[in-house]
C-alpha cells in the first residue's frame, strides 16, 4: 500500500457522514494525529489506550492465538470505534444519531 492510499482512506473517513473526529495514537498512548482539539484528544487517547489494552488482554488470555480486531463502544450520543494495530491505535468517533447517517 502506498502512502497516498492510506492518507486517502483517512481523508474519506474523516469526511464521512456523522464522523466527528479521528485520532491516531501510538503504542505509548501519545496521540500522533488528530482532527479534534487538544484537550479532547488527550483525554480520548489516554482513556481508550488503557481500555484497549485491557480488552486485548481479555481476548488473548482466553485464547492466546486469538487477537482483538476492533472495539466498539456505543453510547447515546456517539459511537467510539477503535481499530488496534501492533504499534498504533486508530480511534474514530461517529455520531450515534441515525438521522444523521444515510
Amino acid at each position, binding site marked *: *500500500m*502506498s*502512502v497516498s*492510499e*492510506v*492518507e486517502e*482512506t*483517512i481523508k*474519506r*473517513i474523516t469526511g*464521512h*457522514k*456523522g*464522523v466527528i473526529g479521528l485520532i*491516531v495514537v501510538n503504542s505509548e498512548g501519545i496521540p*500522533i494525529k488528530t482532527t479534534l482539539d487538544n484537550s479532547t484528544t488527550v483525554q480520548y487517547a489516554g482513556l481508550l489506550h488503557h481500555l484497549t489494552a485491557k480488552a486485548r*488482554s481479555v481476548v*488473548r*488470555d482466553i485464547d*492466546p*492465538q486469538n487477537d482483538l*480486531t*476492533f472495539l*466498539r463502544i456505543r453510547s447515546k450520543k456517539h*459511537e467510539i*470505534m477503535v*481499530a*488496534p*494495530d*501492533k*504499534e*498504533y*491505535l*486508530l480511534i*474514530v468517533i*461517529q455520531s450515534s444519531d*441515525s438521522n444523521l*447517517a*444515510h
Partner: protein
Amino acid sequence: MEKYTNKNNMIYKKLVGNRKKIILVKGEPKEKNVLDFSHLPPPPDQVQLKPDDLKEEIARILTIIKHPENYETVVYSYKEKKWVEIPYVNQSHIYLNFVGNYYFKDSEDARIYSLNKKEYDEKKRFFYDPRIVDDYVDENNEKKFRVLKNKFNFIDRTVQTKSKSYKEVECQTDPAQNVNFSDGITQFSLFNIYEEDFKSKASLKQRKNTAKPVKNIPLKLSDSKQKSQQAIAQEQKAQEMIRMNKSAKVIERMINQNSFNEIILDYKFWDDNADSFRKEGSLLPLWKFPNSLTKRKCITAISWSKNYNDLFAVATGSYNFFKKTTGSIIGFSLKNPSFHEFRIETTTSCMTIDFNPRIPNLLAAGFYDGSVCIYDLKLISIPNALYCFKSETKHYDPVWQVQWQMPNVEDLENFNSVSADCKIINWELKKNHLFATELTQLNIQENDPNSKVEGSHKIIAHAGTCMDFNTQNEDLFLVGTEDGKVLEYSSLHRDKLLTIFDAHSQPIYSIKWNTFYKRVFITCSADFSVKIWDHRYKNPLLTYELSAPVSDVQWAPYSSTVFAALTLDGNIHIFDIYLDLEKPLCVQNVLLKKKRRLTHVCFSPFFPILVIGDEKGTLTSFKLSPNLRSIQKDTTINAISILNKEKFEQDKIRNILLQEAELNPELVETNRKAYKFEIAKPKKKAEAVQDDDEQEEKKTDKNIRGNRK
C-alpha cells in the same frame, strides 16, 4: 603398668612395650612447698576423701602412638631411571624441648651434680660480687645466700611497643538511582515471546538456506543520502502511515456499517411478509453504489467473485461505436458502499470481465479494441508491480465475452473469448504470457442468396456476441451471434458445428446454460423476447415476449427454474417457471432517473442479492423477496430435507419442459442423431442421466404418438 615408689618419693614408671613415656625427674627431693589452703573452709560441693586418698598421687601420662618404621624403602626415580633407596629418616619426633634446670636422673650430669653438689653451690656464691651477696642461715641451719639486686647494678630492661592509634576512614558514594518497575505477566505475553522466538529461529534457518536478501516494499520517497532531516522525518512518518493501512480499512468499513446500518439489517433479516399472501415477489433495494465512483461510464459487465462472497467487479466503458472512451475495471465490496476496493484504468473501454474460480486473484478482461488481458489483483496494491498480462495478438473487433475454462491438458489456466470478428480464441496463461490458439471460426454454410444457382452454398462468418460453456459436458458451448443465431459447438471437434438455432431476429445479447440442468439454455435478444431452449430440440420450448429490448438475462444460482431479465425500459422481470409458467413473478422498475438504460444484471452466488448496472454507471443492489427464492411449491416440505439439491433442481425443470414438450409436440424436432454422434466421451454421470432421459423420452414419444393416434 607398674607403679613404684622408692625411698626418695620419686615416682617413675617402667617402660612397657613400645610405649615411650616422658618421665619428669626431679633433681633432688625437696620438701614439698605445697601451698597450704587447709585453713580455708572447703566448698560445699567438694568431694570428701579419706586422708589416705588425699595423699594419693595421681599421675598424668602422655602417650604417643608410635608409627611403624619403614626401613629400606625404595622409590623409582625418573631422573635416574632406576630404583633408588630413600635415605633413612630418623623417625623420632621431638615433642617437647624444654630447656630448664632439670637433669635427667640417669644422665651423667645428674650423677656429677649429685656428687659435687656442695661445691657447685659454693662456686655459685663466688660468681657474684660479695658486696651484693647476702648470707643467711635458714631454719634448718644451713648456709644460704641470696643476691641483692639494686637498681644501679642491675637493670631491668623493659620494652614496650608503641600502641597504635586507630583512625577511622569512611567513604560514602551517591546512592544508585532507583527506578520503580512493575509489569503484569499474562498468558498471551508468554505466547508472544514464544512466537517471536520461533519466527527468529525460522528466519535464521531460511537465511541459511537461501542467500537472497529480503526485499523491502519500495517507497515512493527513495533513499538518497543527501536528504535533509525534514525529509527523513517525513519518510518515517510515511512509513508509519503505511502500517496503519489495515486499521484504516477496518475503521472505514465500520463507519460504513454504522451509516448504512438499516440497509445491513434489511439485507440480513428483511423478508417481505406480504409475500406469504401473494404469489408475486418484489425486490428490495439495498446498497447503491454512486456513479461518481464509476465516473459516469456505462457499465458493460458485472462479475461476482467466486471465492469472496462480498466482492464483485464491474467493467465500465461505452457501447457507443463512435465515441471511443477509456474504460476501467472497478471492484466493490458490499461491506463498503462508499468506496471501491480496487480500480484499474484501461485505455480502451472494457467490455467483459470474468473472475477465475480457482485462483481468486486472477481477473480476465476483454476490451473494445479486441485485446484481452489478465489482471492479478494481489499485485495492484504493490507499487511498481506488473499486474497486467496483456496479449500480443488480439481480435480485430470488440471482445464481447470472456470465460475461464478448467485447466487444460498441460494444467495451464486458460480462457476463451468471443468477438465480433467471428472468432473464438482460446488463451493460455503460460509463464506470465498469454498464448492464443484459435478455437473456432463462426462459419455457417448457408444458401447463397446472391447466387442464381439453387442450392449453392456459401460460408458466411457470423459475428459472435455472447457465449457460454457447458460445465457438465465441458466440450459443448454455445455462441450467440449478431444476427440472432445460436451456434452449438463442440470443442473436441473444432470447426464442427453441431447445431444452428434460428433463435432471434435481432442480435442476441445474452445466452446462458441452466445452472443445474445442462441441456437447457436461455437466450435474450433485442427483439423483445426471451427464449428457453433444450439443445436437443430445434425450436424453443418457452418464449416470453417482453416490453422492450432485453439487454441481459441470467439464471439464478440457487434454482433451476428462476431467471431474471433486464429490459432497456428500466424493468427487471423475474420469472420462476416452476411456480408460474406464463407470468413473471416480479416486474419492477428499478430506474432511478428516467432515460437511463439498464445494461447488466448479476445474481450473487452466495446471497439472495442482485446487482444491476445501468448506462450511467450507477449500481444498485436488490434483495430478492422470499417468493422469488422459493425452491418448491409446497412450502411445508422443509427445503433442508432435500438431500440432493442438484437432482431435485434437475427434475424440477425437466418435468416442466417435458410437460411443454408434451403439450406442443409439433415444436419437437430432435437433433439427437447429430448430438449422439458428436459426443466422443460422455461422463458416466451424464451417461446415467442421458440414459434416464432417453428412456423417458422414449416414453413421451410413445405417448405423443399415442395421443396423436
